């Protein structure tokens, strides 16, 4: 019977993840570990599959709106991919308890970042690397093309390295770190950093998913219903989102995230 519940649960996870701009991993890993009692390593591996599916499936829609900066995505993917290599090595040496605590702390960080008001500050000058690689670009806004520059590209790359580490350890897309690097540090416009982050997430997740897959940690019994369920849920969420008032839902969800974060941390401490 439990096997029947995982598929609709994944649809719900994908639905709310899409509505609230949170990856399915943030929802599905706690569900698999706290409710279905699956070992966190299998849960992390299954979650990465769903991230690849949703990102790769929606990549063309990110590009059509002319918001995705493909060149910037490729440069920053160097950071995330090599971060994923480090993250996988760390994940194999960490005990399950540590992974629970790390995930709980990440949920608290996500809740804080989701509450934080994002203020857009655009870069005045272009970093020399952005100049050489032509990473600066423009995006459409109310019928006009707005040009933007990029600051502090090396620091953005370093943050992406840590984003890759967390992605591999926790089974998340690390979208929050990517947005922090792009709009927070590199001063990319918010719409561009969101689109570029979503575009990059599939490659970030694939880096460690491939390693987990070859190690035999991606179990089709859970990865299959999770992947399909999250794709369906995310698609439904995208359809419904324009019609819903998401702000009150977001506050409720942040509250739930904090509760689940505490549960994960306690599970890690108590074993």
């Amino acid at each position, binding site marked *: *019977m*439990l*096997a029947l519940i995982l598929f609709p649960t994944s649809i719900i996870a994908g639905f709310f993840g899409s509505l609230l701009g949170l990856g399915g991993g943030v929802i599905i890993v706690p569900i698999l570990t706290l409710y*279905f*009692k*699956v*070992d966190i390593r*299998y849960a992390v591996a299954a979650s990465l*599959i769903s991230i*690849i*599916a949703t*990102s*790769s*499936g*929606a*990549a*063309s829609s*990110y*590009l*059509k709106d*002319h918001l*995705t900066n*493909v*060149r910037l995505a*490729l*440069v920053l*993917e*160097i950071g995330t*991919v*090599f971060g*994923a*290599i480090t993250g*996988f*090595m760390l994940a*194999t040496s960490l005990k*399950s308890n540590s992974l629970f605590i790390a995930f709980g702390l990440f949920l608290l960080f996500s809740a804080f970042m989701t509450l934080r008001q994002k203020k857009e500050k655009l870069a005045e000058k272009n970093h020399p690397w952005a100049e*050489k*690689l032509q990473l600066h670009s423009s995006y459409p806004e109310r019928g006009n093309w707005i040009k933007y520059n990029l600051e502090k590209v090396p620091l953005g790359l370093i943050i992406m390295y840590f984003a890759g580490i967390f992605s591999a350890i926790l089974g998340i897309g690390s979208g929050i770190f990517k947005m922090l690097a792009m709009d927070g540090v590199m001063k990319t416009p918010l719409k561009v950093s969101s689109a570029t982050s979503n575009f990059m997430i*599939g*490659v970030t*997740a*694939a*880096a460690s*998913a*491939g*390693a*987990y897959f*070859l*190690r*035999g940690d*991606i179990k*089709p*019994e*859970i*990865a*299959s*219903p999770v*992947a*399909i369920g999250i*794709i369906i849920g995310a698609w439904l969420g995208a359809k419904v989102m324009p019609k819903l008032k998401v702000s009150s839902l977001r506050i409720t969800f942040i509250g739930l995230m904090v509760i689940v974060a505490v549960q994960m941390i306690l599970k890690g401490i108590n074993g």
Partner: protein
Amino acid sequence: MRNVEKIELKISRFLGRGVMVAGMLIFSGWLLSFNPSKDPFTPLQVYRSYSLINSFQLFVMLDEWGNILSTLGLGFLICLPVLRVLLSVMLFYKNGEKKMALIAAIVLVGLFLSFTQGLWV
């Protein structure tokens, strides 16, 4: 639309279809192997290191063709972003942008290095 973006859009649409194919393989395999009376979670409550090759051998021995189909679908899905990066290498090289082609190639090498970790870690 800029030239690079146009081609990347074509690549992304192609990959979108790839996700559908992978999804169909995964879903078909899951349906074939689905048994409502069997609990798939209990064996996964304790972590056991079991390579992909060993898992495949076990699936073949037990005639679990549904799991074999799902696993092939999952493997195909994981390869799609790698394919995107490979096509980006070719795209930038063909466009005469050797620096960007090199950057994409570094990402590709990183992906392969990451994958091979699963064989020896």
